């Protein structure tokens, strides 16, 4: 009996490690449901002539961002948290002997982030870096997928892939290094708090999409003499199911915003504050519910905008999900989702063809979600010596993230692609449909779309 107890105790270190490893592995894999959802969502929104090309473009976000995140994205996340404010930019050139204090602690993570690092290869000396890498890579794919839906039916695949790499493996990662990192200078210097990546993922990607859309232009026929013309989804059922899968995936995305390491005595946020899965269970479910109602009422029961309201609700409260009372979550999520359809109308008014509403749903509500902790969760000091969460800090991080790391690079890179003729397909391709012109196949080869003839 005593021997068995001793054997059990000997297994304890492994079990502690395995619990953390398994937590991230399982939640990370289930986060892939976001991509299943984006695939269905975009495919349904596209017209039947662009169905396969739209889905293929979205699907290939996974490999292009996955590989480039391995090549340099994970390094960006670990190398930039201190630079250029509180410390150096880390890389193979860094001499660890020259570092001290926080810089020395932060550098420890950098050596495990290079593609040639032993921590990312099969090893028994590090069983967590690989699962963290996977979770981050999936965050990166999610960020790029947000752009994907906005630009469907007229963007060149190659042009999109370049934009996806810039956004998914660099821009949002830099925002995360500064604002979603234990050592990030937004937090250590400004008291920044963004638990569920409202700005770091959604604000950056939504505003990046806006920059791209300005150069890409609307689909042919979307605006006639400046007046918006409806281009209806070819399969709204697929779109609705896709968005519901995104909701499920976001429960796991937010679970992966929690830090759980083998020797921890409780779960923490990335900033070191306490959090529980029960908090997420309550607040995410309520935000989804209130967001759906907000979208429903604001859009007068438009199915597409109603279900988008669920996502807008979650994003609105994402920044302070760990600190908001459930009643506050309901009110804020409802308000954010209520605003979202107004943003869709505003985009139409300016002649911008944002097919899935990425700018209002992710960009605008992401920015709102980043600012709100400065009002409703002000005063929390996340680590000794740091400023408390405050409105000015939240405004500063939101501006840098959504505008300087989102809108500006989105606009400039797409402008460069446009000037090189790499951004948009030809009018002929667009009119005839990308499935036949680019892929040589049709999604519905047996189907005819001729109107029925009366006998």
């Amino acid at each position: 009996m005593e021997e068995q107890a001793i054997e059990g105790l000997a297994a304890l270190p492994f079990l502690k490690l395995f619990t953390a490893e398994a937590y991230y592995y399982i939640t990370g894999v289930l986060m892939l449901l976001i991509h299943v959802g984006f695939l269905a969502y975009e495919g349904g929104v596209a017209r039947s002539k662009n169905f396969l090309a739209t889905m293929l473009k979205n699907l290939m976000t996974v490999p292009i961002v996955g590989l480039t995140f391995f090549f340099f994205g994970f390094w960006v996340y670990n190398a930039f948290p201190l630079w250029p404010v509180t410390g150096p930019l880390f890389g193979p050139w860094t001499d660890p002997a020259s570092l001290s204090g926080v810089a020395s602690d932060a550098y420890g993570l950098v050596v495990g982030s290079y593609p040639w690092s032993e921590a990312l290869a099969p090893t028994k000396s590090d069983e967590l870096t690989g699962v963290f890498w996977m979770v981050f890579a999936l965050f990166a794919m999610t960020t790029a997928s947000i752009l994907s839906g906005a630009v469907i039916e007229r963007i060149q695949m190659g042009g999109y892939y370049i934009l996806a790499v810039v956004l998914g493996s660099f821009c949002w990662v830099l925002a995360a290094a500064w604002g979603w990192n234990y050592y990030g200078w937004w937090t250590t210097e400004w008291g920044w708090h963004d638990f569920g990546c409202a700005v770091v993922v959604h604000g950056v990607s939504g505003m990046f999409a806006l920059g791209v859309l300005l150069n890409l232009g609307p689909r042919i026929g979307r605006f006639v003499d400046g007046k918006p013309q409806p281009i209806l989804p070819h399969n709204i059922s697929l779109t609705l199911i896709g968005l519901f899968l995104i909701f499920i995936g976001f429960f796991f995305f937010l679970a992966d915003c929690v830090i759980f390491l083998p020797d921890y005595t409780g779960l923490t946020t990335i900033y070191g504050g306490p959090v529980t899965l029960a908090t997420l269970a309550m607040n995410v479910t309520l935000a989804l519910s209130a967001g759906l109602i907000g979208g429903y009422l604001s859009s007068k029961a438009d199915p597409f905008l109603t279900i988008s309201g669920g996502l807008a609700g979650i994003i609105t409260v994402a920044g302070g999900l760990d600190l908001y009372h459930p009643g506050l979550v309901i009110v804020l999520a409802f308000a954010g989702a209520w605003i979202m359809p107004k943003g869709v109308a505003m985009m139409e008014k300016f002649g911008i063809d944002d097919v899935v509403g990425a700018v209002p749903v992710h960009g605008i509500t992401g920015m709102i979600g980043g600012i709100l902790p400065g009002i409703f969760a002000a005063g929390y000091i996340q680590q000794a010596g740091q400023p408390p969460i405050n409105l000015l800090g939240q405004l500063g991080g939101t501006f840098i993230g959504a505008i300087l790391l989102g809108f500006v690079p989105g606009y400039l890179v797409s402008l460069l692609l446009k000037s090189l003729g790499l951004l948009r397909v030809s009018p002929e391709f667009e009119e005839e449909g990308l499935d036949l012109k680019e892929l040589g196949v049709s999604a519905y080869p047996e189907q005819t779309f001729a109107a029925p003839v009366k006998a």
Partner: protein
Amino acid sequence: MGSPFDTAEGYVNAEGAIHSFVGSPALATICLILSVIITLWFLYRSFTLH
């Protein structure tokens, strides 16, 4: 409304409630009342939205 903790240690090592309405129960009550109103408004509008 805001942090119920004066220091980082108090927040990080908290044992009880940590939400930002801990020190403002009246605000929590107002939000809950608003939540009920939103829900009832939705139910009412579901009969009138066509």
